[in-house]
């Protein structure tokens, strides 16, 4: 396999909880991302799934250098991302772009589509000379399936799906190599969602993109991802290629997630085993000792509170899974 384009090691992001107005003192830490490691290879899609509050969006922010990390390293093409500054940082920003979830708030309502999609060229004028920009923007609109004549329109004149296409065109403008997609289709209706997912797939083939695809919808992630990482309370609990995660999940959290997804087939009603989790996700400001999932885990034993299970493959799991009692369990209906 080729060298990874993005390599993340022990990435940690804690947010301080402060008290006091004048003399702020830190009284705790929110452990948003707590030791995440993975590799992303060129042309590959890594899906990141998890429930709200598991740290998947913070991970995106840190990867984009929108938030400084607490510790850990990220290398992009073999170079330390957090060591970059000045011209090197600016040059790197061309290579990595982000598509955000909410197509309503992520576009400036007072700018035309032409301005929004063309703004990257203002910041990086070396990519497109001034006279060429309009044509470039129109090309981009066409690539994402919008009418190039709509370049003077404003975001409110477009539907949700079309706005998400505008956001994708903006991310594509500088011909990045990696795009971080943070819940890009969650706000869309199902028929429009399918259109945007197909678009993302086509763009990947056309431009050889790598995606970090963050979503909570397990069906969407399976559809687009080569490999999948499952996050719980700031940690990756299981990672592997798509098939091994969906067909041979060994972590009880992954199994519970998969079994909770309603299957659009009434003939399976009542025949499917659903692993019900009790209670809520603990606060990331005070995560449980040992295994973080133990408070909701049906398999939890004494060792789970004492020792944190490492994310490794073992006899019972052909891919890394952070559980003392990892074992394969068939949770999806056999097709």
């Amino acid at each position, binding site marked *: 396999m080729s060298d990874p384009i993005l390599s993340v090691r022990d990435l940690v992001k804690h947010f301080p909880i402060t008290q006091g107005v004048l003399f702020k003192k830190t009284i705790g830490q929110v452990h948003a991302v707590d030791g995440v490691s993975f590799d992303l290879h060129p042309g590959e899609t890594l899906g990141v799934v998890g429930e709200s509050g598991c740290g998947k969006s913070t991970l995106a922010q840190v990867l984009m250098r929108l938030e400084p990390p607490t510790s850990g390293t990220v290398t992009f093409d073999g170079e330390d991302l957090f060591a970059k500054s000045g011209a090197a940082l600016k040059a790197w920003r061309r290579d990595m772009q982000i598509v955000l979830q909410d197509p309503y708030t992520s576009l400036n309502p007072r700018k035309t589509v032409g301005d929004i999609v063309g703004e990257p060229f203002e910041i990086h004028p070396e990519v497109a000379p001034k006279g060429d920009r309009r044509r470039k923007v129109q090309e981009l609109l066409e690539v994402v399936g919008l009418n190039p004549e709509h370049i003077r329109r404003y975001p409110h004149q477009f539907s949700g799906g079309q706005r998400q296409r505008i956001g994708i065109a903006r991310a594509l403008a500088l011909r990045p190599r990696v795009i971080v997609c943070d819940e890009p289709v969650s706000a869309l209706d199902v028929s429009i969602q399918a259109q945007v997912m197909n678009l993302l797939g086509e763009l990947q083939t056309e431009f050889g993109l790598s995606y970090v695809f963050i979503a909570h919808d397990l069906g969407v992630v399976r559809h687009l991802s080569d490999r999948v990482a499952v996050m719980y309370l700031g940690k990756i609990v299981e990672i592997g290629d798509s098939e091994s995660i*969906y067909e041979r999940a060994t972590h009880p959290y992954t199994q519970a997630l998969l079994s*909770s997804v309603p299957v659009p087939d009434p003939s399976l009603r009542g025949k499917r085993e659903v692993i019900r989790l009790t209670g809520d996700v603990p606060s990331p400001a005070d995560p449980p000792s040992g295994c973080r999932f133990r408070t909701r885990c049906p398999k939890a034993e004494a060792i789970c509170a004492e020792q944190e299970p490492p994310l490794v493959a073992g006899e019972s799991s052909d891919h890394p899974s952070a559980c003392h009692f990892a074992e394969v369990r068939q949770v999806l209906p056999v097709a």
Partner: protein
Amino acid sequence: MTDAAPLLEVEDLRVEFGKGADTASVLNGVSYRVEAGETLAVLGESGSGKSVTAQTIMGILDTPPGRITGGAVRFKGEELLGADRERRRLLRGESMAMIFQDALSALNPVYTVGAQIAEQFRFRRGMSKKDAMVRAAELLDQVKIPNAKQRVKEYPHQFSGGMRQRAMIAMSLALDPELLIADEPTTALDVTVQAQIMELLDELRRERDMGMILITHDLGVVAEVADRIAVMYAGRIVEEADAATLYAHPAHPYTRGLMASVPRLDSSRGQLDPIPGLPPSLTNIPPGCPFHPRCAHADFRGRAPQSSVSGDRCRTELPLLRVLEDPAAGPEGHRAACHFAEQFVAASPEEVLTP
């Protein structure tokens, strides 16, 4: 009225918003019925009119800007659309109740959860403040909120998302309604919590023999709990059948398109078959079949027809919701609003749509 009248009957309901050229026809003749103990799922995308129908049934549609221009809503045979405000107010909570998608904005942030539930007992049942709080705690216990006696004194922001939704369910059940309308009850929740809430709703419906209208856009949720399903598009019901029939052989190209758009957990990568284009603007619904500009089978688009379906009728003649001859359908039958529904019913869900 006679006992034979269904719990709820909506007939040819029509609602408009706005004036003149900007008039949006939001509901264009919606009819459905719900019996006691039954779950009817109303499936549709944003703007299809599923929530407006529910608001009209509950009598909480804002008029203006909305205008009810025709139709009937009958609860156990009693016509509601002409009824006076006081009668409608009494029916709300007592006979029909509703839960909403966003529990945080549906609950009042400055009152405790208990006080908001107890309010109904105090003003509708004349209970004392103390008795009402005891009843509120019992209800929280029934919706499986742990430690209900303490939690009853807490404020909505102290509850997690799933617990707020439980509290809202408790509130809606306070006066033992016979009909519960759940408008996207789990859309804002995580999948593990969604499973808990859907199970709770189904359990409560069975225990109390309530009729339930479940409004959702999630084909998975529908398949798990619905007895019957009504699919809405552009303010009309385009297909209605029992759950098994609808999924096994959908008769309307829109329903088939929806099913082809859903990425499945149990199959890996490949192209999805989305419905092309966008839903129509409700101020300018296309003539003929409102779905024809997006329909792969209306052959006027210049493509070779993929079946023997022909297109001109689709452009000019509005297909009405009619009963299909479908031997596999349940006793309630299978209805669809497509000129060529018979041909789709005969095919398997994937067949006709794959070029």
